[in-house]
């Protein structure tokens, strides 16, 4: 029997009104603007764009404001917005080698062509709270030097000598997997896995990547290269008849260089893992590259024994919108479900006590 229960409309309406009031906070404090969020909380915006799987700084900033700074809620809002717009198609694959670099480092080669460019980084800061930031201030203008020349990818340099495995080649006949269009099925190819990891929760990937470092599916990683900067994006427009430029996008990329592998027929060479994300999302791309590599266990004929090597486990639990939906649905009314459990439990307990009292009765007789 299905019993519809009505009620609570006024409570819900007032709860949302209270939420809006709390979101605004103390009304004597100036309201935060989207451009303030976008400019001054920019790494939070980058994370919402990456995991919301939608590149649009202003929308991500709006989502953060609406979600009161709860980034998973903001990611949820952005994902829901995606569904309101038609998709015109897919871009040409971006060329990260042509990135206008704002940061580029390698932990494998000190003297890479183009050099080690630190860019705007928390690295080498002392992680001491800065009391000066508590007040308003105007930081010094950045130092400048002769503009940078182009930056070859470190993996291209290693690749010239065959020391590292080449990237998988394009198969013109195979369509690019898209998990927003087809439900996940296993085993999943690397293109689908990377799409899943790109929108995966940063904390989840960080923990999995960390677990591989601690021995649960060890892969002996080096950060071959990490780069962040602007990449031009082009879209083949049917009407124009050529690939039209859409503008530049900020992206981060991590090339992990991992333990080498060889066989009777192939000379040993380094293997690799790859990470790519919107904005400046370095921890995300490093974690993604570690997990991309560990998920290649099947392909590289490694024993699958750790969570980070299990693609079904990783891909089914990486999405924080799905995860939060299922975890948080527990707080929605389950009155009827619970009533039936309660009825069953009462019956079982009655049976238990009845059985427990039997021997006593027998003894008494």
């Amino acid at each position, binding site marked *: 029997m299905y019993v519809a229960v009505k009620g609570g409309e006024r409570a819900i309406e007032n709860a949302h009104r209270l939420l809006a009031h709390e979101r605004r906070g103390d009304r004597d404090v100036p309201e935060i603007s989207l451009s303030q969020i976008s400019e001054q909380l920019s790494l939070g915006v980058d994370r919402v764009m990456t995991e919301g799987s939608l590149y649009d700084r202003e929308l991500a900033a709006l989502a953060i404001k609406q979600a009161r700074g709860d980034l998973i809620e903001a990611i949820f809002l952005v994902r829901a917005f995606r569904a309101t717009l*038609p998709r015109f198609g897919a871009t040409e694959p971006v060329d990260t080698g042509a990135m206008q670099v704002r940061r580029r480092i390698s932990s494998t080669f000190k003297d890479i062509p183009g050099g080690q460019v630190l860019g705007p980084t928390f690295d080498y800061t002392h992680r001491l709270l800065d009391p000066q930031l508590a007040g308003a201030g105007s930081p010094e203008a950045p130092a400048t*030097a002769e*503009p940078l020349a182009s930056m070859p990818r470190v*993996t291209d340099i290693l690749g010239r000598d065959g020391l590292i495995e080449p*990237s998988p080649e394009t198969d013109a006949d195979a369509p690019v997997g898209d998990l927003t269009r087809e439900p996940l099925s296993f085993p999943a190819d690397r293109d689908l896995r990377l*799409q899943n990891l790109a929108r995966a929760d940063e904390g989840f990937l960080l923990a999995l990547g960390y677990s591989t470092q601690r021995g649960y599916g060890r892969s002996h990683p080096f950060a071959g290269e990490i780069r962040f900067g*602007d990449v031009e994006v082009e879209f083949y427009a049917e*009407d124009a008849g050529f690939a039209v430029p859409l503008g530049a996008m900020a992206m981060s990329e991590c090339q992990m260089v991992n333990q080498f592998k060889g066989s009777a027929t192939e000379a040993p060479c380094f293997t690799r893992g790859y990470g790519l994300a919107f904005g400046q999302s370095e921890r995300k791309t490093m974690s993604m590259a570690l997990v991309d590599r560990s998920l290649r266990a099947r392909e590289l004929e490694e024993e699958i024994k750790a969570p980070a090597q299990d693609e079904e486990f990783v891909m089914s639990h990486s999405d924080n919108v799905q995860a939060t939906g299922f975890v948080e649905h527990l707080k929605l009314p389950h009155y009827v479900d619970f009533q039936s459990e309660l009825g069953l439990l009462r019956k079982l307990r009655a049976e238990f006590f009845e059985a427990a009292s039997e021997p006593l009765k027998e003894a008494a007789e």
Partner: protein
Amino acid sequence: MGATAEDAIDARRKAAMTVLASVAGAEIARCLNAIDLPAHAELREPENGLVMVRGRIGGDGAPFNLGEATVSRAAVRLATGEVGFGYTLGRDLAKARMIALCDAMVQSRGYADAVEANVLAPLRAEMLARRSRKSAEAAATRVDFYTMVRGEG
């Protein structure tokens, strides 16, 4: 028109679009104010949509879907027949429309020079200056390694 002439025009249109997509819509509007705009009609009303942005495995391998981006597009036709297309990241419909108009003017004998002088040249200079400034700021954070000499020479 031969294939090479057509390619040259496409290359010119693409170069113009690169400049226009890189700046804010308000900047294009400011520059367009200096031109007596040709008569034109909307061929496709400006609209918002999404594109799936693709990367390559390992940076240079097979493509994969990274995530989507908002885009705007529009198309216009000049009274003289040239058709222009406007595409840009983001949700600025007016910007897409202005890019389409500029694209049509780039192909028009009568307007190509005016759009180059009043719109593309100043915006290109702005784009290059911005890129060069960002690059110069990054360059100042490049590490200069030096070796410490230890012990007695």
